[in-house]
């Protein structure tokens, strides 16, 4: 087999081996850790791009690559499947991981031990969850991702992190139990754990078994909804994301998206071939949850008193918008949702990193300087003017201010950047629902989506004034290139999405076309044959 055939396993193997290699390396040999860690993420980025190109090259609903682990023929073994959606999510993860990792080199990697190994394990879990086609394997990758995320939340220790981490772990352990119950019920109903096989079997089950399958899927959905932080299962999120160190919080931006991605896949499982119309009830439930989540996030945004909490609530708002897109059920709405997913992942990542930089001008800012000056002048001494190292004030502060404005425009969906394009396409989708006629609940949803943007911009203005204009003077932000570049990289990605919105939407439309025919791709997965042993001829 050539290397290109092994590409689908690499996003899991690379971080796993890197983590294994980095764990025994002493914390004092930081250079090795940094070099190996960054190299691994760059390689993952290259693999993700290669997979994306491969995924987009196939026509129709066939998956680009089906990787049979252990060479068992499906549905007996665990299968990794790469289609356009999973390739897109892999690329998104790698594009977010690279700046988060580079940013952490500046200082956050040193506040605790094993940062690089835990970071790689998080990537392994996330990548695996995007690739696997087996429900129980999905559970395992979720647990890997969560175990790593516990380490990330607790990285740096301290009372606040331990307290928040404690609750975060309890919530996720409980939701893991729910996950298992859901998987168990689906297995009991269908006798299979392969998502592709369940998709094909769903239509042929007896009515009692089908009801059991739906119950299992609903319970499983609850576990995914906890991960994607939907109301009322989201009270853990602002606190635990708020206390985590900045690069960890930026990586968590992808974690809520893993829950959402799994919902997409689950949707394909429970849809029998001719029963899309029968899903209206479920869609309405999800729409109601999305609406309440949006309302909750809007109120939470207004109540937020600091930037960290606000960006945590922003994640909840983006979940609300993503779920409204999912519940609409049309291809156009799904493509718009995925576009919003890309933008919101990047911008929330950028926001968490930017807030960390902004806190630096506040924490070591006016108050402390004033106190020091007072103390010294009381003793008849005048502080000598200190020579500034690094980028001087105007550039540093201008960068922070400009970044903040860009983030607020992108998050709230103001024109002209990609946040606006994403929200606008979604609003168009709300007005073209699957059932044809526009009902009152569509108008409510539209109002809530626009309203969350409005409360967002109010909060950004309020907090922005407090950070930039109220203090008499700012500490001079010593921005280093490795801190400013990751933020710039994420924001440039968002701007690039504005410019190349057409090609991106083209790709997303093809993605959604694949998703709307789950049966064709499921058949293709089950028909893939094991590789012949050396010396044998393939059957």
């Amino acid at each position, binding site marked *: 087999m050539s290397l290109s055939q092994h590409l689908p396993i690499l996003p899991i193997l690379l971080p796993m081996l890197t983590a294994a290699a980095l764990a025994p390396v002493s914390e004092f040999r930081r250079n090795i850790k940094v070099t190996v860690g960054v190299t691994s993420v760059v390689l993952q980025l290259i693999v993700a791009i290669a997979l994306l190109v491969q995924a987009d090259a196939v026509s129709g609903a066939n998956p680009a690559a089906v990787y049979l682990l252990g060479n068992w023929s499906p549905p007996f073994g665990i299968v990794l499947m790469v289609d356009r959606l999973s390739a897109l999510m892999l690329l998104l993860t790698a594009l977010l991981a690279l700046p988060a990792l580079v940013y952490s080199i500046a200082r956050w990697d040193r506040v605790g031990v094993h940062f690089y190994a835990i970071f790689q394990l998080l990537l392994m879990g996330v990548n695996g969850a995007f690739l696997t086609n087996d429900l129980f394997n999905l559970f395992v990758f979720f647990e890997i991702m969560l175990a790593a995320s516990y380490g990330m939340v607790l990285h740096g220790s301290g009372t606040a992190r331990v307290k928040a981490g404690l609750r975060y772990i309890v919530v996720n352990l409980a939701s893991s139990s729910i996950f*298992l119950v859901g998987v168990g019920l689906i297995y009991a109903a269908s006798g299979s754990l392969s998502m592709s096989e369940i998709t094909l079997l769903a239509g042929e089950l007896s009515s009692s078994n089908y009801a059991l399958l739906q119950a299992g899927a609903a319970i499983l959905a609850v576990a995914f909804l906890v991960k994607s932080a939907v109301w009322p299962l989201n009270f853990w999120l602002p606190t635990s994301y708020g206390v985590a160190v900045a690069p960890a919080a930026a990586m968590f931006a992808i974690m809520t998206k893993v829950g959402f991605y799994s919902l997409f896949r689950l949707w394909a499982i429970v849809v029998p071939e001719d029963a899309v119309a029968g899903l209206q009830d479920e869609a309405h439930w999800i729409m109601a949850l999305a609406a309440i989540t949006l309302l909750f996030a809007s109120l939470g945004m207004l109540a937020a008193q600091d930037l960290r909490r606000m960006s945590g609530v922003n994640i909840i708002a983006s979940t609300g918008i993503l779920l409204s897109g999912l519940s609409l059920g049309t291809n156009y709405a799904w493509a718009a949702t995925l576009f919003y997913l890309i933008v919101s992942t990047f911008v929330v990542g950028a926001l968490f990193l930017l807030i960390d930089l902004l806190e630096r001008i506040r924490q070591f800012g006016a108050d402390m300087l004033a106190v020091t000056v007072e103390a010294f002048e009381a003793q008849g001494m005048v502080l000598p003017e200190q020579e500034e190292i690094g980028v001087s004030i105007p550039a540093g502060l201008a960068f922070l201010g400009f970044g903040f404005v860009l983030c607020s425009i992108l998050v709230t969906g103001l024109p002209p950047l990609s946040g606006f394009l994403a929200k606008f396409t979604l609003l168009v989708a709300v007005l073209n629902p699957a059932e044809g006629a526009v009902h009152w609940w569509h108008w409510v949803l539209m109002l809530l989506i626009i309203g969350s943007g409005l409360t967002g911009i109010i909060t950004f203005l309020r907090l922005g004034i407090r950070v930039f204009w109220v203090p008499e003077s700012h500490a001079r932000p010593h921005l280093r290139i490795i801190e400013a570049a990751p933020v710039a990289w994420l924001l440039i990605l968002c701007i690039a999405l504005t410019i190349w919105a057409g090609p991106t939407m083209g790709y997303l439309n093809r993605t959604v076309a694949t998703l709307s025919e789950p049966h064709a791709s499921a058949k293709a997965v089950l028909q893939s044959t094991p590789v012949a042993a050396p010396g044998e001829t393939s059957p």
Partner: protein
Amino acid sequence: MELIFALAVGVLCSAGIWLLLRPRTFQVVMGLSILSYGVNLFLFAMGRLKLDSAPVLAAKNAHEATKYADPIPQALVLTAIVIGFAMLALFLVVMIASRGLTGTDHVDGVEEDEQ
């Protein structure tokens, strides 16, 4: 047998959930482990309850599927036990760290009368 099994799962899960909602971290730990016992039993039963049959193929009767118990849920339960055990150990460490840092075993890190 089905009734006893269902009752066991139900009692374990409800006891686990009740303990999970209690304010002391120790109660939460007990709740989580009891809940995971309940869930593991439930998962085990998803392969249908069957007496006097092994999940491992024997030399004779290897082709008669009805003679065997479903091995997949058993494999799943094993995995779930291992993962759950590791997570519980991790949670215990965090719990002890929280006790050390806050000086109380309340889940909020503050005694109720101090709030």
